[in-house]
């Protein structure tokens, strides 16, 4: 008997192999996709940890007050005097100075702001925040003082800069690039005041301490210290002692930890939030795939119900009868697991390729997630058996005659008592009745497709929301002065200083307006966070923020973003505490001041705040400026202004007002790679579900179709009816999918990403194009799936099908 069943099953496989393979692929996309998506945490964590460890990322960092420096050894001496000095494993003093970088090539102008980091390469250093070289040769202590630098890898890669090149820095001096390298603070480029992934607008230059000092004109000076701690050390205690010692020594400086570094937090603490998002998407993906596979296998097994009834009538035991449908399940399960490994590797590799392309880590461990896959493959193995077992169980529980009874004589979802008014022409009625005939089957099909469309919407919607926020930020930054250019100065200058006058006098510059840009933090009942404060003439100046609540002229106070106000838990007219710098001679100290929120602006960037320049007294900066807004003369571009101001020593950077938003856009464009991988997988899933549903429908309704053809109904009309039925399913699935996608986008933007991107207000936004794409994909793909069965319909053996006596 077993031999017969095996042969029979083999014939089943030969007859149904496209469906078996397609269902296996559905399972594979679910399980492989789940494994690929949910395993990123594992390999990202390992890769990040090993990379940070290999390059000795600092635990504690000391930044001298903006614009100030101290002699080499000063900061190290402070560290050596700490009570917890035994906790310190290594110390490096550095000089970090802002600059402009001209890396223009023959084909493109590349003028961005940047930073020169000078480290001590003696004794095989630096020992904290060391460098990994991707191309070229690493710097050594022998290069000390020479105009040689290593160019930051993300920036170099973004612009496709050659491994060896010559770039110019502020003041028009040339430095030779000997390598492309990275260091922990630059695994993702996150300069102060900007987003992470800002490689399009920020260039890091790494060199020896002596070279940095020479380039900056600060011989023997440093302004930064980084240190690592021994394992098990009390970092908070070291930070507290260091802050106290620096204050006692009269050194204006800020003590930070690696957790204050945006580049570090963006990569490490966000892994879990990223993973939460991937997990949610993966869960939906596998739910859709499993639900659809269950439905399809269930229907395949149900087609054997009559034969099971016949077997029972012949006295064959139920256990033996179950073998044949379960063998089909075994074929699907085995193929599903095999395909799943392939899909998992494909998705995992694709995601790994995107991540390794995005983040230049020295260590990447992206092995196939065997453990995760084995766990999820279990689902892929069990589902086909469950899906088959159910109809078999139902068939063997009833009397043989019930199992043999034709489907149309069995109970259905239709009843004459509940029949609604006919829709008219029977060709139009039939598709809707077929949907109502099997409500559970219809619901499972709808939900399977809807789940995949929800994931698709989720992926596309999150990008819409991000780009929508970027658009808002850009529109707000542009305002009524789209040509506006901001010039950052290397330190504070009197408004009447020759350096400021030189900017104003440049031939390409029409109007200048001095401003102040300061870093601080703000505290309210609901939150506290870093803040970038711009003081400008907000009433008569060349640009002012839009106001969404309050008024700009409502007296002294802060103009905060709507998100900032919401997060702080205050309203217009209420007070918050601003922690801000106050100038004391050549250094700064931080003080807390209560300020009223006088207005809100719509920028999605939470950390951007404004004040009137006339309130500069609060910071003891009246009459000073460290940034200039300007408008170019008619016909001049930002690049023209950049070129012209590049050689001025006091100019740290020249940027268009949209530079930051363009950088963010570029950064997210790179993430689109992940989205595209998933979109292809999801579309394939939806198509396979739709195709299989259509194929199984065709088999299940073969006799109905044959009867139609016997009555002269053309294949075209039968297809139209099948397409109508699929269209209804497609519309229902798409509607649920879009609704689910909207919910998903809401959850991701309003819950999940508020932790990942706390400084960014993401709207719940689905662009009409996105909805249209999903709707077209969902409705068209599903409703047109029956067309794939046209060949089989045309070749139908009419006499044979009609003669089938059930």
């Amino acid at each position, binding site marked *: 008997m077993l031999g017969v069943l095996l042969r029979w099953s083999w014939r089943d496989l030969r007859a149904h192999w496209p469906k078996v393979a397609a269902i296996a692929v559905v399972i594979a996309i679910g399980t492989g996709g789940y494994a690929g998506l949910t395993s990123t945490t594992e390999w990202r964590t390992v890769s990040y940890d090993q990379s940070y460890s290999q390059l000795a990322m600092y635990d504690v960092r000391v930044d001298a007050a903006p614009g100030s420096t101290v002699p080499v050894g000063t900061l190290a001496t402070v560290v050596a005097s700490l009570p917890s000095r035994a906790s310190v494993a290594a110390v490096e003093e550095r000089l970090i100075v802002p600059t402009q970088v001209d890396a223009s090539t023959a084909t493109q102008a590349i003028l961005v702001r940047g930073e020169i980091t000078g480290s001590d390469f003696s004794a095989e250093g630096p020992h904290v925040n060391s460098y990994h070289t991707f191309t070229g040769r690493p710097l050594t202590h022998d290069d000390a003082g020479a105009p040689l630098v290593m160019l930051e890898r993300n920036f170099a890669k973004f612009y496709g800069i050659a491994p060896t090149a010559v770039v110019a820095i502020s003041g028009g001096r040339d430095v030779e690039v000997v390598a492309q390298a990275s260091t922990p603070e630059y695994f993702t480029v996150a300069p102060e005041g900007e987003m992470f992934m800002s490689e399009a607008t920020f260039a890091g230059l790494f060199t020896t301490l002596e070279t940095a000092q020479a380039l900056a004109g600060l011989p023997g000076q440093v302004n930064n210290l980084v240190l690592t701690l021994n394992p098990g050390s009390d970092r908070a205690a070291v930070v507290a002692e260091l802050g106290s010692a620096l204050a006692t020594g009269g050194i204006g400086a800020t003590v930070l930890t690696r957790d204050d570094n945006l580049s570090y937090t963006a990569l490490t603490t966000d892994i879990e939030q990223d993973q939460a998002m991937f997990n949610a998407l993966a869960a939906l993906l596998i739910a859709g795939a499993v639900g659809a596979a269950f439905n399809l296998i269930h229907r395949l097994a149900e087609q054997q119900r009559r034969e099971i009834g016949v077997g029972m009538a012949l006295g064959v035991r139920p256990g033996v009868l179950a073998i044949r449908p379960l063998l089909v399940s075994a074929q699907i399960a085995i193929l599903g697991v095999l395909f799943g490994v392939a899909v998992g590797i494909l998705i995992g590799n694709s995601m790994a390729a995107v991540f390794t392309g995005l983040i230049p880590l020295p260590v990447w461990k992206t092995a196939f997630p065997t453990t995760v896959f084995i766990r999820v493959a279990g689902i892929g193995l069990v589902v086909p058996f469950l899906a088959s077992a159910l109809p078999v169980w139902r068939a063997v529980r009833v009397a043989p005659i019930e199992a043999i009874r*034709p*489907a*149309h*004589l*069995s*109970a*259905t979802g*239709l*009843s*004459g008592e509940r*029949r609604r008014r*006919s829709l008219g*022409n*029977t*060709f139009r*009625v*039939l598709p809707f*009745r*077929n949907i*109502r*005939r099997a409500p559970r089957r219809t619901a499972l099909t709808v939900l399977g497709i809807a789940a995949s469309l929800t994931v698709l919407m989720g992926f596309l919607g999150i990008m819409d929301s991000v780009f929508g926020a970027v658009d808002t930020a850009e529109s707000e930054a542009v305002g009524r002065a789209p040509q506006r250019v901001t010039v950052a100065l290397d330190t504070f200058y009197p408004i009447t200083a020759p350096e400021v006058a030189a900017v104003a006098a440049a031939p390409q510059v029409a109007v200048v307006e001095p401003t102040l840009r300061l870093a601080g933090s703000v505290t309210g009942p609901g939150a506290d966070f870093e803040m970038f404060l711009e003081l400008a003439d907000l009433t008569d100046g060349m640009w002012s923020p839009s106001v969404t609540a309050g008024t700009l002229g409502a007296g002294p106070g802060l103009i905060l973003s709507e998100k900032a106000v919401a997060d702080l838990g205050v309203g217009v007219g209420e007070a918050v505490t601003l922690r801000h710098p106050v100038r004391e001679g050549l250094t700064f100290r931080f003080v807390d001041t209560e300020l009223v929120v006088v207005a809100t602006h719509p920028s999605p960037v939470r950390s951007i705040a404004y004040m009137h320049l006339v309130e500069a007294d609060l910071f003891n900066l009246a009459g000073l400026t460290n940034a200039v807004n300007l408008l170019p003369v008619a016909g001049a571009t930002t690049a023209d202004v950049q070129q012209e101001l590049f050689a001025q020593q006091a100019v740290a950077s020249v940027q268009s007002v949209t530079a930051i938003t363009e950088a963010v856009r570029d950064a997210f464009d790179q993430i689109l790679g992940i989205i595209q991988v998933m979109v292809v997988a999801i579309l394939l899933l939806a198509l396979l579900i739709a195709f299989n549903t259509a194929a199984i429908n065709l088999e299940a309704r073969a*006799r*109905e179709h*044959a*009867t*139609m*053809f*016997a*009555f*002269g*109904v*053309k294949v075209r009309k039968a297809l139209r009816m099948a397409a109508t039925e699929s269209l209804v399913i497609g519309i229902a699935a798409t509607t649920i999918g879009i609704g689910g996608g909207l919910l998903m986008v809401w959850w991701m933007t309003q819950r999940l990403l508020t932790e990942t991107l706390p400084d960014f207000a993401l709207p719940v936004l689905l662009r009409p194009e996105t909805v249209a794409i999903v709707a077209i994909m969902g409705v068209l793909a599903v409703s047109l799936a029956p067309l794939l069965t046209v060949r089989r319909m045309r070749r139908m053996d*009419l*006499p044979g099908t*009609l*003669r*089938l*006596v*059930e």
Partner: protein
Amino acid sequence: MLIELKDVTKRYGEGELAVVALDDISLLVDQGEFVVVLGPSGSGKTTLLNVVGALDSATEGVVRVNGVDISAATRRELFDFRARSVSFIFQSFNLFAGLTAEENVQFGADAASSGLDAAEVLASVGLGGKGHRFPHELSGGEQQRVAIARALATRNPIMLCDEPTGELDFRTGVQILELLQEQAGTGRAVLVVTHNREISRMADRVVELSSGRIVSDGPPAGGKAPVADLNW
């Protein structure tokens, strides 16, 4: 003549594996005739029905039905032919499970664009009050009545019935045969394929097949019997 078959042969397969289902058959059926095609299993009677109904094509010979030479017709013409000329009644009814009784009948009218009122046609086969029921809510006899009503709703001149009483008990079967006989009375040609010799007693004409050949063609032996005299 509504049905003209001249030297029709139907072969399945080729060479040594070839099976001759119809072997050089010629047959004429006029309107108003109630013809029973009789024969044992494998005699070719269903193949004959399928060839007449253009569900299958003859290998050789000419098949002209309702004025259409279906042996030379295109695929499109065959669909039109089936919609306008023939109506099938099957042993297992082949009703649409998703349509009510009345809608199944309406389907016949829609397929042939006959414009007949489905409720009236259904009432004519004695199912006036059951139009709202779905097939699974009807008995076997009622389902076959619906199938007949569906065929009638096409207003096509030829009814092709393949073992129409095969799944019915004697009493119900007799009622169905009466119904079919009435249709011949309205001018339709009714071809009933059966292996049940008793049924042939009520026919105007009995065509007996054996191994794909017509072995006899004429009135029933012993004359046409009233339906009430049938017994099986």
